[in-house]
């Protein structure tokens, strides 16, 4: 057989055998061919553009026009910027796997506070983001930024991202309800006074077996709110060296007090979902009078709970002890520049432009009620605008007044785990209270102490596994 006829022979054999194949085989082979062809035409070359990842639709909406303007203003070798919206988890996963796998990520990445710890897990020199400390200092930005707002993004005095926000916390409350009940809540300088003032409103007039109005929307499962309250009371979960300090007397007393709000047959706090439609309905119904309200929460309510517009007011948080701190902090975002970027210069300039421009700061406040961490921008008239949602209070100024007081937060890679451990401790103590007919404050405190000891042990054990960070625990 000559080669060509052998080839023909083989081809006809192949065709013959194809005849015998079933429908399923045909479908899958066809799908293979079609999808392969489509993907061939779409084969994407890696984009030359600068990539930026954000997780908030509002941020995207704000940055897009600004970036366009930036591009028009500059000429020459600046690359166009692609702005992509991803979920927080997706950004974390992709950035982390990019850093670990040595793959290119975006050039500018917004990271949420809950996930930043993971990026500080390895040896400090292996952190995937550029150390921005010297730049920040050289350009005089370092001193302009509200000092406590740098803490979550700094390790051993080196800062790895530009802070996007301050996120101070106030108490937001249904002023329509308190005022018609004749209660002046601004008298509540401490939590004890706060609950005392609102107790008269806990009657069950509609007799559905629940008080008509709980004083506070706060529950033991809401780890963010527990952390917020603990921070307000001066809790430190890690010291400046990153050594866990979970099991301290201060922390135990704080946590015991917080638990006592939720425990027992007549709790003062209630479990209202913070972000679901069901929770929004509870807010309109006035199931709770007061809320722990970081600045960003205002915009969520404006968007999803229009029913409480003009009924709310804000005031500084009641303190744990007379004269104590009247605010706290919750959440936060930084903008980091990965070391893998090919265009550090342009990334840095864009980052500074986006995070320090007065227009963006103004837009940020108008659109999502977030105040800028740049102190020189704080006298912008936008913050003095009365807000009709909050009965025309100048809430921007009120938040700004509290901003320098927000607690310092740890950037420990284990902070998020520690917060989860605190929440679990609280849940376990709650479980204990359910099995008791009655208990004293001291017994409760004792339970909390032993739980915190457990939590401290769990975190120490996790940390002792890490040979890189060089933190020796006990």
């Amino acid at each position, binding site marked *: 057989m000559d080669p060509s006829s052998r080839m023909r022979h*083989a081809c006809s054999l192949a065709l013959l055998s194809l005849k015998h194949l079933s429908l399923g*085989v045909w479908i899958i082979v066809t799908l293979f061919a079609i*999808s392969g062809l489509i993907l061939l035409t779409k084969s994407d070359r890696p984009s030359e553009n600068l990539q930026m990842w954000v997780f908030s639709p509002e941020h995207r909406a704000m940055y897009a026009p600004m970036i366009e303007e930036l591009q028009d203003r500059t000429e020459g070798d600046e690359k166009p910027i692609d702005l992509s*919206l991803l979920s927080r988890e997706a950004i974390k996963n992709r950035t982390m796997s990019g850093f670990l*796998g*040595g793959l290119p990520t975006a050039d500018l990445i917004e990271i949420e506070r809950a996930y930043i710890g993971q990026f500080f897990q390895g040896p400090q020199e292996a952190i995937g983001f550029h150390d921005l400390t010297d730049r920040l200092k050289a350009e005089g930005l370092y001193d302009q930024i509200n000092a406590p707002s740098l803490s979550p993004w700094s390790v051993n005095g080196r800062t790895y991202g530009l802070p996007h926000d301050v996120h101070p916390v106030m108490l937001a409350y249904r002023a329509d309800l308190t005022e018609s009940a004749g209660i002046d809540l601004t008298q509540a300088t401490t939590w004890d006074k706060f609950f005392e003032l609102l107790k008269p409103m806990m009657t069950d007039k509609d007799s559905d077996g629940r008080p008509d109005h709980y004083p506070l929307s706060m529950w033991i499962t809401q780890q963010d709110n527990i952390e917020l309250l603990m921070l307000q009371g001066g809790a430190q979960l890690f010291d400046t060296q990153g050594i866990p300090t979970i099991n301290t007397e201060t922390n135990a007393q704080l946590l015991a007090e917080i638990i006592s709000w939720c425990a027992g047959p007549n709790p003062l706090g209630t479990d209202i979902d913070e972000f679901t439609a069901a929770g929004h309905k509870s807010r309109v119904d006035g199931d709770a009078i007061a809320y722990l309200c970081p600045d960003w929460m205002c915009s969520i309510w404006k968007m999803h709970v229009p029913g409480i517009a003009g009924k709310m007011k804000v005031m500084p948080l009641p303190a744990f002890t007379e004269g104590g701190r009247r605010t706290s902090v919750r959440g936060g975002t930084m903008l980091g520049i990965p070391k893998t970027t090919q265009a550090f210069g342009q990334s840095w300039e864009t980052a500074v432009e986006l995070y320090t421009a007065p227009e963006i700061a103004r837009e940020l406040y108008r659109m999502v009620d977030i105040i800028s961490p740049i102190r020189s921008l704080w006298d912008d008239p936008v913050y003095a605008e009365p807000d009709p949602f909050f009965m025309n209070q100048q809430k921007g100024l009120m938040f700004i007044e509290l901003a320098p007081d927000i607690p310092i937060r740890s950037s420990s890679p284990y902070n998020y785990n520690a917060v989860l451990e605190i929440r679990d401790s609280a849940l376990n103590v709650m479980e204990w209270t359910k099995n008791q007919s009655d208990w004293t404050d001291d017994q409760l405190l004792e339970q909390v102490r032993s739980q915190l000891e457990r939590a401290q042990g769990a975190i120490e054990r996790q940390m002792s596994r890490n040979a890189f960070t060089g933190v020796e625990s006990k």
Partner: protein
Amino acid sequence: MSVARPSKLSRSITHFVLIVLAIVVLLPYAWLLVASLKSREDFFSGMFFPPGDGFLGISWESLTLSNYTALMEMGFGRAAINSVFYASTSAVFATFICAATGYVLAKSKFRGRAFMTLVVLGSLIVPPTLLIAPSYELLFHLGLLDSVWGLLLPTFAPAFGVFLFRQAVQQSVPDELIEAARIDGCSEAGIFMVIVLPLIRPMIGAFLLITFLGMWNNFISPQIVLQTSSKQPLSVAISQLRGVYRTDYGLLMAATVVSVAPVAVLFLVLQKQFISGLTSGAVKG
């Protein structure tokens, strides 16, 4: 089987129980489908259809396809094409490679055959989860992270497929037939293509389907290997959608429908092969 004739009553009870169970199984599908047609405002009105004054007391006109168009605008179509490509490529290559290997291990006599069969069968007890971390490390060193081939190549040679095809060949390809073809002057490749493949046709169909389904539903490998969003399949794309649009139920529902519908159609067309394929035990857990 001869069973005493069941009474009418017991037969209706059986049907009643079966129908209730069938409803329990089907209810999530119905909910999914209807919710994907509801706008965000309507999601909480009515468990299924939004109430209104249309036919059956349902507000038909408030149903909308907007969730689907929104998905397409968000690049979900690309994820769907990726899913089709990964699943079908993996299925075609794995089937062909496993069929050839299984045939050779069953019928050819060569030195090392026993050893190789032992190794392949022995590897069946290695749980795939053990290989996740080292495979990731290997792909890193091969420079195959975030590449389509890094995702696909490891799926092309499942030992389980070799085992199935080796068995199928042993059971349904008689040695005499192969000998006869050889005497007729058929080439070795020709024997495989013309004689063997048609004889193991049921296994080919079944194995193609299970590898297709397995890859379509695979979540952990693309989640670890792929990084660029334009490369991601539906399984990863949908889980990432959940973060940003957590409150946009309709959109999530529509995304789930898009992810499940193609397999459902395939299933309805090919249910026999599907069931025999799946019960050969590959896709579970």
